[in-house]
């Protein structure tokens, strides 16, 4: 019974991952990240992703505050933030987020404030979507680990 549950959960996880791949939310880099996880670092992926969330939320907050400042927009600073965001996103394989970042950066390089605002909204949307999905994924994984006893996943 327990084993069956674990299999189903793994199937769920794969399906979710497939969906995310298909939607272009994630790319191969995420798989690579998962490959880095092994017995010695069992929570590597979730650890990295959590750092990513933490950082990204800070960055997003900063970006929003820069853009909301009516008098002046510090595009240079915005560019630095965006680079950070883009780098970390591509590191964990969040493809769509990093694509939006590229568009955002282009808009900020053109000092296009309206474009920046639109991009920011899109970025927040994508980020939320990614966060939800990844949380879902980790939840399933957690359940699976529980279900499968102390077996570690994704030994490829």
């Amino acid at each position: 019974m327990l084993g069956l549950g674990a299999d189903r959960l793994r199937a769920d996880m794969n399906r979710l991952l497939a969906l995310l791949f298909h939607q272009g939310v994630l790319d191969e880099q995420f798989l690579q990240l998962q490959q880095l996880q092994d017995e010695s670092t069992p929570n590597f992926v979730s650890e990295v992703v959590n750092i990513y969330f933490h950082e990204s939320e800070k960055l997003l907050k900063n970006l929003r505050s820069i853009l909301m400042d009516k008098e002046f927009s510090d595009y240079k600073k915005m560019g630095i933030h965006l680079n950070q965001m883009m780098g970390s996103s591509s590191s964990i394989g969040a493809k769509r987020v990093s694509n939006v970042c590229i568009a955002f950066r282009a808009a900020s390089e053109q000092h296009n404030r309206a474009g920046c605002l639109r991009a920011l909204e899109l970025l927040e949307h994508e980020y939320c979507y990614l966060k939800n999905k990844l949380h879902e994924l980790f939840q399933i994984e957690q359940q699976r680990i529980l279900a499968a006893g102390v077996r570690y996943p994704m030994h490829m």
Partner: protein
Amino acid sequence: MCLKMLQHHIQKQSLVQNHSVSLRVNDQTGTKKGYTFIQANRGWLPKFFMLWVLMVAFFSMLLFEGMDAENKVRRKDFLISMCDQRARMLQDQFSVSVNHVHALAILVSTFHYIKNPSAIDQETFAEYTARTAFERPLMSGVAYAQRVLDSEREKFERENGWIIKTMDTEPSPVRDEYAPVIFSQETVSYIGSLDMMSGEEDRENILRARATGKAVLTSPFRLLGSHHLGVVLTIPVYKSKLPPKPTVAERIEATGGYLGGAFDVESLVENLLGQLAGNQAILVNVYDITNSSEPLIMYGHQNQDGDMSLVHESKLDFGDPFRKHEMKCRYLQKAPIPWTALTTAFLFFVIGLLVGYILYGAAIHIVKVEDDFHEMQELKVRAEAADVAKSQFLATVSHEIRTPMNGILGMLALLLSTELSSTQRDYTQTAQACGKALITLINEVLDRAKVEARKLELEAFPFHVRSILDEVLSLFSEKSRKKGIELAVFVSNKVPEFVIGDPGRFRQIITNLVGNSVKFTERGHIFVKVHLAGQSNGNTNVKDETFLNGGSEEGAKSDTEQYRTLSGFRAADERNCWDSFRHLVADEDSQPNSSVVDMMAANDASEDVTLMVCVEDTGIGIPFSAQHRVFTPFMQADSSTSRHYGGTGIGLSISKCLVELMHGQINFVSRPKIGSTFSFTAVFGRYKKKASLDRSKSKSEELPIAFGGLKAVVVDEKPVRAAVTQYHLRRLGIVSEVATSIKSVFGMSGKNGSTIPGNNTQPDMILVEKDYWVSGEHGSAIGQLLDLRQNGHVLKFPRLILLATNISDDEFDKAKAAGFSDTVIMKPLRASMIAACLQQVGVGMKKQAGKDAPNDSGVPIKSLLCGKKILVVDDNIVNRRVAAGALKKFGANVECAASGATALKLLQIPHSFDACFMDIQMPEMDGFEATRQIRKMESQVNEQQMVNGGSTIDGTAKRSEWHMPILAMTADVIHATYEVCLKCGMDGYVSKPFEEENLYEAVAKFFESKLKPVSDS
């Protein structure tokens, strides 16, 4: 996706439309500017032509008129002169006759009246007039009528004995006066005794004549005798001399009678005209125009034919002031049609018409040609636009397909990682293989499109030629082994270690050619040979020579070795067979191995290195009919080929493009059923070695150098194959000799072994070709050799190594039994693989950890990085974590730094880091700057060391110089960045996010090179 494509399509269309619109605008401006006059007035051309024709017609008419008028004038002049001549002559003759009649009148007056009695009677008069008739040629006759008053009538009738009769020969009625004819010429004797005054005209004439005293004429009438038209001339004869200036009454009183003569005008003019030339051409009429409103005809017919258009009138003066006469002349015939003028005018018209038509035709032609030209130009522009659009479309679509394909492949990889049944796994693997093939195809199409769009640019940085070839070889080793084909690479010694160019593209070409060869070859060999382009030239000359010298030898050996190629199968191109090949090898053997660098120095004169690469196979070959379209994209030899072997046929066309980009040429020799040899040249830049680079480091590259100085004997009958084996051994630093049989080796080693054991000349290993061993004839020899070994006769017995393309388990066991217990090296040979195998059997005495066969790339990277202390510098915590995770996975000891400044602090010398991964984009101090600072620091310390006389400062600084390997981490993999990296002192770069192969490549470069000093210490 579909929507996206559609959108693209629409964009393309609108683009094309834009194109054509702009073209049309161009057209219009062109009409305004560059177009010819003709083109601009094309609508007017037919009108011009019509105008021209009309003009020509008008001019020809003018011409005709002119010529005709001239003719007419001439004709008229002629007529005038003729007419005048006739009139003058007529007048002259007439006046001569009148004069004579005058004279006759004087005669009658003198001899009839003044002389009394009269001296003239009828006979005298008749005779005289008859005899002088020639003087009056125009007169039919003359007669004299006496004036008789009524009172005198009876007396007169009595005297003469006859009565006066009227013209009708009736006795004359009573009148005031009578004029009976008393004398008459013979010709007109019928008028004798007739009263002339009884005829109306005569009476009038008589009255007028005696009143004026001059000769007078009647109007023309039909003459009595001849019924010709004529006039009667009447001259008064006076009885007495007239006083000067007599009055009319005096004249009438003095009148004695009248002399009359009839002019037969008709016959007169007839005679006259008969005397003149041109009589026939001219029609002459003579009129009496006394009554101008009603001219009376005197000669000619009123209604005669003739040219009525041209008439000339000449005045005639017959001496009678009362009467007026004229002569009218006409041409008898109408003016002849002026053929000359007509022909001239017509010809002129025709010529004019033709000229006009030619000009018109030319203009029309020009217009047409220009139209065509513009149409063609437009079509050309459109075709080019379509071509560009096609390339763009291909590129875009390929790109669009690639994205979802990556997803599919990723998913398949995920799927494979799950627990699958064997069938499912098989399906999945097939799907993955197909997906990979599709990606490859798409990449090829993309390449092709890029090449066509001229967007493909070659990179230029130094790369290692031989390792590229090894990589290609390893790529196909699996396939060739499966098929049992011998795959071999030979690189001439003269080819420099490093050249500057685009290794990816170079590899792509070779991979393509070798891939084709592998695909189409079922037996025999595939042989890749690389040498300098100049080398082959010399060889062909030598080849002829050997052919002459060694002809007999070859004939003898042809049974045992069918062809002196790598595998013994016949090849399409004879260039790679041993006869020519051995000169290439001999060339190299004459140069000691260590002198490669010297040679390169000698060749350094030129900037470029032209490499010639030949890929020879013994496959199915290309049919002669298809050879001309081998390089056309999407064309395979024939359609059945693609069905049979798969593939798109795009590879060769890409290869051709790439070769051309490398300023080279590609060509091939192929014979069906025998094989093909593709060869291409490529021009690379010569790599100038930097003084700082360690020679040994660059030379060994990835190869261990632990085998330097070892000796080997290669036992192989096939010299080409032996040369290939030697080439690989040489790369490992192993000196080798070739023996054609074990016996000779045995003899050699035995002799050496017995005399001087452990001598340098004794081989450390013997490499035996499997083919040779399988032939079995030399089993005993091997046995002997083994016996020798077991007896311990030789202290350090050479290792026996079998070289095989493919080997079955049975054969393997047999080989072990036969004494090849040491190892079997599977072909295709690669230096690194030989090295690995040799290490396995412990030939290289300094055995090193982590030097297993590098087929599995995961193992060496782990061994490379294991235990190394690595610093990761990145401001992005996520990246830092990921990089650290990846490196840790490979066993490295990782420390992190969040900024360039921190890294600098950590790297204060002395430190214990083995390498540093540096992010380029960092706030405050970026990777370049940090690296520069680190290098500055290092050089300061190094200088200090130099000052201190090379003594080590402390234990950690084992190396003579501080040089920390710094690798850039960057998200974009453009080579411009790479160059900047090198410039500021970095050793290499890895693309972010990490990929295992990429990381391995970058790390291996400096860790492997550092192995030597580490092991030395």
